[in-house]
């Protein structure tokens, strides 16, 4: 039940990010929209890994291997989430860098100003 709520929030975040990215004119808000979408995706990833009333897959005194198999959360999506978060951050950094250069080239951050090459 919990993972269904987490999944819905993740997907809602993706939709909100998309909406922000499509409607806002300012490039920085578009980038925020993209990072929101990224976060939403990461939440979806983690939601997929959730096992009914499971706990962190760390084998220690509190959770032996046999117990972990039934009570531990699926470790694979969490591992993938780490990588996805790093990629999300990397892409946002590159976007911000280009946003700065765009601002310097035209002294405006509105996406509509940057439509040189068309047709």
């Amino acid at each position, binding site marked *: 039940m919990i993972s269904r709520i987490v*999944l819905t929030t993740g997907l809602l975040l993706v939709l909100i990010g998309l909406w922000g990215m499509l409607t806002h004119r300012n490039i920085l808000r578009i980038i925020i929209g993209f990072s929101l979408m990224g976060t939403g995706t990461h939440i979806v990833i983690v939601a997929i*890994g959730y*096992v*009914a009333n499971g706990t962190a*897959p*760390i084998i220690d005194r509190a959770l032996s291997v046999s117990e972990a198999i039934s009570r*531990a959360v699926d470790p694979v999506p969490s591992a993938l989430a780490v990588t996805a978060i790093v*990629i999300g951050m990397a892409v946002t950094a590159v976007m911000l*860098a280009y946003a700065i*250069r765009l601002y310097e080239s035209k002294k405006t951050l509105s996406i509509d100003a940057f439509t040189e090459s068309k047709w």
Partner: protein
Amino acid sequence: MIRRHSIIVAIVSLGLVFASLVIGYTEQQAARPLAESYIRLVPQELGAPNVITGILLTYRAFDTLGEIAVLFMVAASVGLVLGREGPPRGVPSEDRPGEARPSSEIVQTGTQILVPLISIFAAYIIMNGHLTAGGGFQGGAVIASGILLVLLAYPQYQPNLEFLGITESVAGALFVLAGIAGLIVADGFLDNRILPLGQFGAFFSAGAIPVLSALLGIKVGCELSVILERFRP
């Protein structure tokens, strides 16, 4: 106006697609076969209590290697795009005051108190990556947040880019070297059994994972601070 309507239609239909996902989604009652075998294999084969770090730094280490390459390239691309060597960038425009003003005294004292705390916490995360939650990436990010705090508090402070660049490359090269060592000594590229697995749960255990995690932490820390440094006006 048509644009807004078309955006609404697009978002609503995508919402419907997502709704079909949520409806079709059934929560997992037990771990999937792959997850189950990982939970069994990681402690037994790699000796690492934290299954996720075990996966990240050995079984899917090739992904992590790709990850490092991604971060490495971002540092290089941001350097290229914002062109440190290029013409003096960021001519002070009217809404950005001369060179950055020193921040207020409260922030400076706060930084002096917090930075040691943050670095200890970061070191803890990195070194205990294989025991408790955490690992190289998370630790590196915490280091970077510490450095960001310092950059904010003391604007005139210039982190030594030369040093960061070199450590970054050396850490990356060492990581690949560890991978090659795995090829020669252990039975596969990036295999962590190049060092003894040691006693389960001890500080020095799970073969090369702590070493790899440390390298990863340092590298990510340096890279993120280089990126932050590039973004300053």
